[in-house]
């Protein structure tokens, strides 16, 4: 990579940091955040992550548990160094606090690729950490960096707590701490005398902890590196896990809301149509862009919404999907927002190939808007009492949920408490705050009475912050047995601008990396490779959706690379390896590993074929081979083999579960997922027309975890990107049909 480019990236990062407020100096930054824990009686906190209780230890795991098992892995980081048994550990979400902000997540928005720029990435993370702390201060779960971000921080919290507990025992006994050891929540001396952490906690809390305690070598780990029983499993199989609409409060009322079908618009007129006289209906509340009904039960509230007549402001975007896609197509002709990869002379080589009329491949790919469709629709419980607002919600951004709700109802954020519950899926949707703010507004309408707000499924499908529709135009030239050039233009609405505007009121002055991730940052050694990103202003609200830009760019690029291979009768796997091996060995190993598991290249039974795809994302390398078969004219997806390199595997069982999850989530989208618009409104409404994968179509999945990458990567999102192209490539191998738009249903007859 050219030196000039690195310098330019460095400059971009510098300006971002200044924009974030480095001018204030570093003094405020280096001050530690205070410990936000408020221990109850019989409890002692030793630092923001450790609460010693009478029966064991509560470990604060300040990331959203939306199914990805993060509470278990984060608790293990602390427990490993603290020397407590797994049975003694409880994971608690803890209060929203700037102490728990997620520095790495913001760094993922920086316009650098992850695999080849560790130095820049480090500087970038530091700059963002400062900027975020001063200006943003958002506690966020998203972008798959939860474990990497916490890896050192939470292990040090455990180690520091163990050191002060040991010192407290040493003082009590008059023995030098170095002569003591810790085990299963106790400090022991050489004679076998023991004191529990509970007995020592109060004295330990008076001792100043070391700022930089030493950490154990991985060879000595007892918990990390093992598959641990998930802490949330028993509650979730017995129906006792508490989600936001399961909070039990006395005299609770139920609510539901109806937001304008014209996204981003407002209410002009409201005719309650006597719905307020319906049985059980207590109050109808205008929410500005929505109307809410509060009733004795949720069914009454949902039914009453159907009776209310509202006049909404008209949509400010094209009314149909066709027109919206044309907007994106036009954006592709405009000046690029970014050119984050520009190796060699991609356009010149492509034009030369065109002039020759030889070895040129050109294609246009399209993907639709997608809803998150979490199993739990948006829900929240809220209570406004004595001038204080409490919200129970499943949120990926608790500090933001608190601040937005406070601003909307005119309260000081100090008077708003967020209690984060389990969430019935997130996938990015619960990083938004529309639903938590609605719950706050409803609670203020009925002071002293708790309200349980549940969105109808129809509301959830039609009021999402959608995965953007996107179009790619790609040209490629094939040389001797390998691609010589790829020139790729990607057009889509900007998630970065949309979400930044909603979160902090402005879009950062950066190239939109999310728009082109999964393309420009792939570790392919290609002499001529250009990727340009073109932002389309569509007016449709877009947001982060599991794997964000990779969710479409991996489909575009990996399908296109397959097209290039087939156009020159090359093996798609071998051709990828010639590009990966020189650039990034761990990535090449994942491809080899997936191929070996699937016996790539072997003679397959008649009517059976395989497809392959690769992606480097969230710091991990992931390769997948899909096998499909023709079942009397219908295509069955039989097996997926996935090799993933996560650098360091902290919980192999959970990593495998996340890979399975990411693959099946991506399959739903590839096979069925699409949000379309008609008359300015979303045309889909429930699972009959927004179909998702069911068990009878779920393939067998085999996962192999590798640890060659030199840094720890994410796992929650990385299974998703390669599955759509791997499936499309397998279908091409089986039928000769090249799929250039998603979803596949309508083009492919699935078994």
């Amino acid at each position, binding site marked *: 990579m050219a030196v000039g480019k690195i310098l330019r990236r460095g400059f971009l990062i510098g300006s971002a940091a200044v924009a974030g407020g480095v001018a204030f100096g570093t003094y405020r930054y280096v001050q530690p955040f205070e410990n936000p824990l408020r221990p109850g009686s019989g409890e002692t906190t030793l630092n923001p992550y450790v609460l010693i209780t009478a029966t064991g230890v509560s470990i604060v795991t300040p990331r959203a548990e939306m199914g990805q098992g993060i509470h278990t892995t984060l608790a293990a980081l602390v427990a490993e160094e603290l020397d407590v048994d797994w049975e003694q550990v409880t994971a608690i979400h803890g209060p929203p606090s700037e102490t728990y902000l997620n520095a790495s997540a913001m760094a993922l928005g920086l316009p650098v690729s992850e695999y080849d720029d560790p130095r820049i990435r480090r500087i970038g993370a530091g700059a963002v950490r400062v900027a975020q702390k001063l200006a943003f201060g958002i506690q966020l779960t998203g972008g798959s960096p939860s474990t990497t971000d916490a890896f050192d921080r939470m292990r040090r919290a455990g180690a520091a707590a163990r050191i002060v507990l040991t010192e407290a025992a040493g003082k009590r006994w008059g023995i030098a701490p170095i002569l003591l050891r810790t085990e299963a929540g106790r400090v022991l001396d050489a004679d076998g005398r023991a004191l529990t952490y509970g007995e020592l906690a109060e004295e330990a809390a008076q001792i100043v902890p070391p700022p930089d305690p030493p950490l154990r070598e991985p060879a000595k780990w007892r918990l990390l590196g093992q598959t641990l029983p998930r802490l949330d499993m028993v509650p979730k199989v017995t129906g006792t896990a508490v989600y936001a609409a399961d909070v039990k409060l006395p005299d609770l009322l139920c609510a539901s809301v109806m937001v304008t079908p014209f996204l981003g618009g407002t209410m002009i007129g409201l005719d309650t149509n006597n719905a307020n006289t319906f049985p059980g209906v207590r109050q109808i509340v205008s929410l500005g862009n929505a109307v809410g009904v509060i009733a004795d039960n949720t069914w009454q509230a949902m039914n009453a919404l159907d009776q209310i007549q509202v006049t909404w402001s008209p949509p400010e975007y094209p009314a149909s999907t066709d027109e919206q896609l044309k907007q994106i197509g036009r954006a592709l002709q405009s000046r690029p927002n970014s050119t984050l990869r520009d190796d060699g002379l991609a356009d010149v080589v492509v034009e030369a190939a065109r002039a020759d009329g030889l070895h040129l491949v050109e294609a246009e790919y399209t993907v639709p808007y997608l809803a998150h469709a979490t199993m*739990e629709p948006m829900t929240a419980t809220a209570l406004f009492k004595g001038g204080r607002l409490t919200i129970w919600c499943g949120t990926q951004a608790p500090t933001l949920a608190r601040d937005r709700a406070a601003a909307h109802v005119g309260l000081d954020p100090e008077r708003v408490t967020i209690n984060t519950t389990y969430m019935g899926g997130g996938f990015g949707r619960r990083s938004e705050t529309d639903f938590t703010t609605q719950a706050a507004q409803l609670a203020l309408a009925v002071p002293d009475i708790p309200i349980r707000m549940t969105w109808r499924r129809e509301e959830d499908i039609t009021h999402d912050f959608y995965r953007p529709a996107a179009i790619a135009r790609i040209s490629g030239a094939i040389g001797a047995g390998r691609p010589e050039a790829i020139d790729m233009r990607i057009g889509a609405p900007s998630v970065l601008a949309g979400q930044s505007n909603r979160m902090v009121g402005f879009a950062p002055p950066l190239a939109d990396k999310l728009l082109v991730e999964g393309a420009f940052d792939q570790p392919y050694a290609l002499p001529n490779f250009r990727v340009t990103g073109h932002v389309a202003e569509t007016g449709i609200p877009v947001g982060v959706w599991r794997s964000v830009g990779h969710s479409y760019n991996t489909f575009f690029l990996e399908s296109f690379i397959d097209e290039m291979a087939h156009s020159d009768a090359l093996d798609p796997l071998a051709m990828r390896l010639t590009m990966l091996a020189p650039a990034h060995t761990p990535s090449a190993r994942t491809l080899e590993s997936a191929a070996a598991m699937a016996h790539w290249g072997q003679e397959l039974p008649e009517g059976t074929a395989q497809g392959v795809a690769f992606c480097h994302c969230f710091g991990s390398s992931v390769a997948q081979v899909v096998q499909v078969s023709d079942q009397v004219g219908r295509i069955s997806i039989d097996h997926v083999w996935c090799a993933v390199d996560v650098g360091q595997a902290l919980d192999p069982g959970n990593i495998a579960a996340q890979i399975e999850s990411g693959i099946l989530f991506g399959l739903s989208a590839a096979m069925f997922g699409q949000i379309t618009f008609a008359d300015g409104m979303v045309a889909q409404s429930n699972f009959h027309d927004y179909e998702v994968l069911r068990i009878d179509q779920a393939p067998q999945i085999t996962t192999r975890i590798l640890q060659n990458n030199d840094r720890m990567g994410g796992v929650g999102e990385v299974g998703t990107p390669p599955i759509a192209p791997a499936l499309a490539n397998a279908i091409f191998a089986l039928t000769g049909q090249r799929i250039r738009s998603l979803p596949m249903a309508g083009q492919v007859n699935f078994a």
Partner: protein
Amino acid sequence: MRVARSYFCALITISTAAPVLFCISSETYLCGKPSVTRTATDSAVASIGWIWCKIYMTSLTINDTPYVVEIEPETPLLWVLRDTLQLTGTKYGCGAGLCGACTVHIDGMVERSCQVPIGDLDGTVVTTIEGIGSPEALTVLQQEWVAGQVAQCGYCQSGQIMQATALLRENAQPTDDDIDAAMSGNLCRCGTYPRLRAAIHAAAKRMGE
């Protein structure tokens, strides 16, 4: 008004049978056996109450506990469970019988509780996830669910377990195809399908031993 209604209903139900009564309205909980002196006026009031109760009261057994529920008869069982009785283990997913998150057993049969009006359930026996097992006493199927680390977000899992429990009751050794046929009405967005299939097989094996 609501208090009075509950009183009538309590009166009638007491005079007819139940020694222990849970009379539940959205505002009033009566429990136990009130002593009532019957007079002519009371009888008249009771007759009106009897008619009212025939319309608005449903007597049913949920997880081995008898309940009398006062609510509009068209209210789906799901919302009676969640909002009236605070049995929140049963989840709302779609309200249209498309996702299976609200699956319960009614007289031993699998039903989507969002599709069943409470008024149709007089005299029935309902089992929800709360009646299947508890954190202290997991069923074999739940134990295998834990052993296989099936749940992720967990929201669909109550419904999955209710569906799978019924499957194993009818078919002690289901094949993959049997599992697909029985479970394909229960959606999961986290993709726990391969693991829940394995857990059902493991439970069937253990229960058959």
